[in-house]
């Protein structure tokens, strides 16, 4: 546990931001990454996303702060993260990807670092801007999102040892896989409910008759 959360591991997350290609290679082959750090980064991302939506200055933020629920957002972000990792893993297993589930989780989690930084910087900066300077705020946010997307792309590419084209194809397939997983889960839940209600009605019949 200590080893997974060590200072080295944290520093490595920032090294990944500055040298994505090399770092992702070492994550895959030299075990430099850490899944707990990745999960903490996902939670941090969710928090900074919610904080940005709630407390960015209303000059640049057209959201009703009362309509934002940080807890629901945290759960949905974690769920999406899990879905993406599992979806990507199941697709790349079939497409000769070299990455393990662990590597995918680390690649996706570490890729969120630029967004965490930029969302928080943006929230602070938004307290200072006027309407005319709002463009700078949107630039900060857009920069964070773009950097994260590029990092995620590089991460998936390096971890599985893919070409760029193949990475794009697998990411597209990953989204389809995610949809299928959601569909299957919903179907399963529905069936379970029906089975449950079946047994429950038997139970009720018995109760009323005995």
């Amino acid at each position, binding site marked *: 546990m200590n080893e997974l959360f060590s200072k080295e591991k944290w520093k490595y997350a920032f090294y990944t931001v500055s040298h994505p290609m090399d770092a992702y290679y070492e994550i895959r082959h030299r075990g430099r990454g850490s899944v707990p750090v990745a999960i903490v980064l996902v939670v941090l991302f969710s928090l900074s996303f919610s904080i940005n939506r709630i407390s960015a200055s209303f*000059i640049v933020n057209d959201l009703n702060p009362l*309509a934002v629920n940080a807890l629901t957002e945290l759960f949905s972000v974690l769920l999406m993260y899990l879905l993406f990792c599992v979806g990507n893993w199941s697709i790349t297993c079939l497409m000769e990807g070299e990455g393990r589930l662990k590597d995918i989780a680390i690649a996706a989690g570490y890729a969120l670092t630029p967004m965490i930084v930029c969302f928080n910087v943006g929230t602070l900066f938004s307290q200072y801007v006027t309407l005319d300077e709002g463009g700078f705020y949107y630039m900060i946010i857009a920069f964070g999102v773009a950097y994260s997307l590029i990092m995620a792309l590089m991460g998936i590419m390096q971890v599985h040892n893919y070409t760029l084209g193949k990475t794009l194809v697998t990411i597209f397939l990953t989204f389809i896989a995610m949809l299928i997983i959601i569909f299957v889960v919903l179907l399963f839940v529905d069936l379970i409910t029906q089975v449950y209600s079946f047994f429950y009605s038997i139970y009720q019949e018995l109760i009323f008759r005995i």
Partner: protein
Amino acid sequence: MKMKKIKRFAALLMAAAVMTLGVGECVHAEELPYDTYTYTYWEDIAITPAAYVPNGSASGLSVGTTDFAEPQDLCVAPDGLVYVADTKNNRIVVLGADMTTLVRVIDGFDRDGNADTFNAPYGVCVSENNQLYVADSNNKRIVVLTPEGEFLKIIDNPQSEILEEGFDFVPLKVTVDYADRVYVIAKNAFEGILVFESTGDFTGYFGTIDVKITLWEKFWRRLASKEERSKQLLFIPTEFTGIDIDSDGFVYASNIDSEGVQGVRRLNPRGEDVIQKGENENLGGDLIVGMFGTYAGPSEFTDVVYRGRGIYSLLDRKRGRIFTYDKEGNLLYIFGGLGSQEGTFNTPVAIEAVGDMIIVLDAYSGTILKFSETEYGALINDAVGLRYDGDETEAIAKWQGVLKLNENNELANSGIGKAYLTAGDNKTAMKYLKLAMNRKYYSIAWRRYRNELMAKSIGPAFTVIGIVIILVLLYKKVIKNKLAKRKGGLAG
């Protein structure tokens, strides 16, 4: 002994309960049959104090004639008399300004020696030049009379090549501008409002509402064959429902918008829509509407009244509500409702303004319902009116009065915020403009306040930085000296 104590306690409790209930009843004594509300920036409903309260009604019987039978329109003349188009009784009834006296009944007129009558007069209007225009719907003509009922002229049978072959002219609503041009809403005239010159010549259509076809509908029409297309519904523009005119000759016309986005138009003399929309780009009445049932769906405006100083009110027949907007398209207040209590409508068809009062004609019960403005309504009307006149400083006192009655009124907060901004109190301006969710002016106030802060703090900031630099330099020198001394000491 103990029992007695309990009994006494219970009695005390009862007395207290009765007292509190009694007080509560007092508070709710003047309960209205409807809520007055508005929509906030976030498009939530905000209940406000009442802007208008029911103030009696008038019917045919109450003024001393037979009851109205499905009256369809009413009009307030420049001299204050109220003209009612009593459609099913084929007559025009003229009431006094206070709607308690009968002035006269016009049930026919003498046309060049022949007695003539109306057949379902649907619309009525009195021009600025004091001439009475009656949309005599089943006789397919507009009859122009003096207010006393003397025949002046008839406008009928419009001739033009833009009219369809066999066009049936059935006028429903009519209004007249300062130059005696006549604007007529006719049945099945989907191309817009018919305009007649003062001579009675038809000049053309006016203010056509564009047909809206969604992308989806276009896609399906593209897929359909010619035969299928001919069987589909035609895309027909919606008709206008009510009409009014302001002193500059701009026509306000209401229509039923199935999307609930724009239910009123302000048409310039060329027939172009020049209405101003508010922040949310909506002039369609209720923003929150149900999805199912007869009570659901967007508001259906059946009439409009221009009330002066840029303020106009719209009458919604779906839920019996009256929506009031200002010149900039801000929603001021909403009140009214359907029902059978006093002050509610069954089939509201026409709305007019008499001084401070709003009057609404109900076709089903044949009554005119009167609503008088409250302190809250008067303050809003005055403040908006003063802003329309360009007298922002005078408006502030009114807005402050509004805030005392409803501290969440966004328009009032915005008005006061702007005043503080003009006065140079940027920090207070920011507070009010944020409450008003006025992004544009808040941004201006914040920029000025930021500059103020910077101007104030730039001197001290530089002093601090200067002192720090000097200290660092001194410190370095001291250390160097010490090192040099130590070196020297070592050397010595």
